[in-house]
């Protein structure tokens, strides 16, 4: 399975945009939020996501969906 990754646009600096990345669990489909450092580590295969709903542990590719905010 390959994660469905959506990266939000940057928009104009005066427009409010997202500040937090969200991950949907591949097992229970629940959503939880993660910071950029963990995201990078999981993407590089050096760490994993821990679903706060079903406690499943999974990697970047097995997430159901990931919504990424671009760095400011």
């Amino acid at each position: 399975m390959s994660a469905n990754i959506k990266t939000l646009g940057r928009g104009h600096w005066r427009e409010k945009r997202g500040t937090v990345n969200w991950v949907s669990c591949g097992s229970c489909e629940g959503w939880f939020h993660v910071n950029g450092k963990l995201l990078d580590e999981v993407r590089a295969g050096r760490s994993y996501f821990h679903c706060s709903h079903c406690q499943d542990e999974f990697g970047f590719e097995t997430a159901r969906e990931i919504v990424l905010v671009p760095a400011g």
Partner: protein
Amino acid sequence: MSVTRDLRSFLAENEAATWRPQEALAVEHEITALQHAGDQSGSYPVIVVDKPKMPDGSISDIPVICNMTASRSLTAGVLGLSDHRHAASELYERISGGIKPDTVPSDQAPVQEIVFEGNECDLEKLPALKQHIFDPGRYLTAAHATTYDPETGIDNTAIQRCWIKGPQKMTYYTVPSSHNARNMRKFWANGEDCPIAFWIGHHPSVVIGSQGKLDYPQSHWETVGAFLGEPLRLVPSKTHGDKIMVPADAEIVVEGWIPKDKLEPDGPFGEYHGYSGPQVLAPYCNVTAITMRKDAIYHDYGSGLTDMVVPDNMMMEGKLFGMVRAVTPSVTKIHVPVSGRRFHAYLQMKNPMGGEARDVLAAVLAYRRLKMAVVVDDDIDIFDEREINWALSTRVQWERDSFQLNGLSGSMLDPSLPFGSRTVSKLGIDATLPQSEVAGAPKPTLPRSVVPDDILKQAVTNFANADSKEWPKE
């Protein structure tokens, strides 16, 4: 048979919310001090003083009612609103509606049961209050001044202060932008004195309905009818006949003339902003008649206190709602908080589209009285200033989310204005969250830290039932 809605019917229906101190209380400071104490403790009973002690030590046989509109929830209930939090939308509807008034003859007008004319008039017998330390004397603070536009004959009504200077003389202070001031200037430009009548004491629906922010020239009587839910009963004034009508079921009416181009010192006086405003030049009224009920009650507004600020701010909410409706349907609630006097407004929006929050801010900041407006999402309770502060502290980057508008018209009573200023500086703050961009995904922001609703509900019940008397409050 329906009961006429007046001050008496209001008091009869709200006995439980009314405090009647048994002791005599001086009209100088002591009654107003009760209102300060109530504001400080966050308690807002209607206060009726049956034994007002006059400056010469005598007890007036005219009771004083004050704090009538200090409570938002009581005021909303009396107005028939579903909830005080819905004042903006529901008062907007009222302001937009109207019921034509009825005219009754003098013998059916309680307010003309007693008539004093000419030298029989004695303003000094009214239990008017000297509220604050710098006030130079006793003021009528809930006197609704009614004048008319000499070009159209259309009347206007507004609450404006009057300092009692003698038995038949009182100042009449009105800011230059007011509709009554426009009428007065028109009479003066024609070389005439301005006819005027002041009515005091009525049902809160009448008092608040008459404070609607209307166009010029536009009579307030139909709006008052919409607030009352029935035609307002009017009677021709004794001095000016049907050119100036007054509410037949009011408590007291003072009639007279504002002499052309005559100004005298007025004030200092406690203003709505909570400071004592400076002494100014003001017109004055030569009184020609005082009419009243046989058992009249005198109504006083605590100037700068919650009593005065609440009804005016609720009417502002209705006015602002009409202004934002022209821009977007996304505004759900508006709060003009007592803490910000008339200068601040909080607006709640449901799912604002990109740019909509700023559209709303630009629209409301055009309103003369406002200095700052904050827009938040519908998860923020705009009637809880802790929530507003939380949104400001966690959802705003100032460079991105705030903008300043300079050189706009504003309240010249703003104590922060540099001397001689004619315009003000205003601030809009978008404290909303960014909107969702991916269908089905959460907003790309941090979620609130919460516990499950049902567990919280039980915890709230447990807390309410616990013996908390000894618990620290701060």
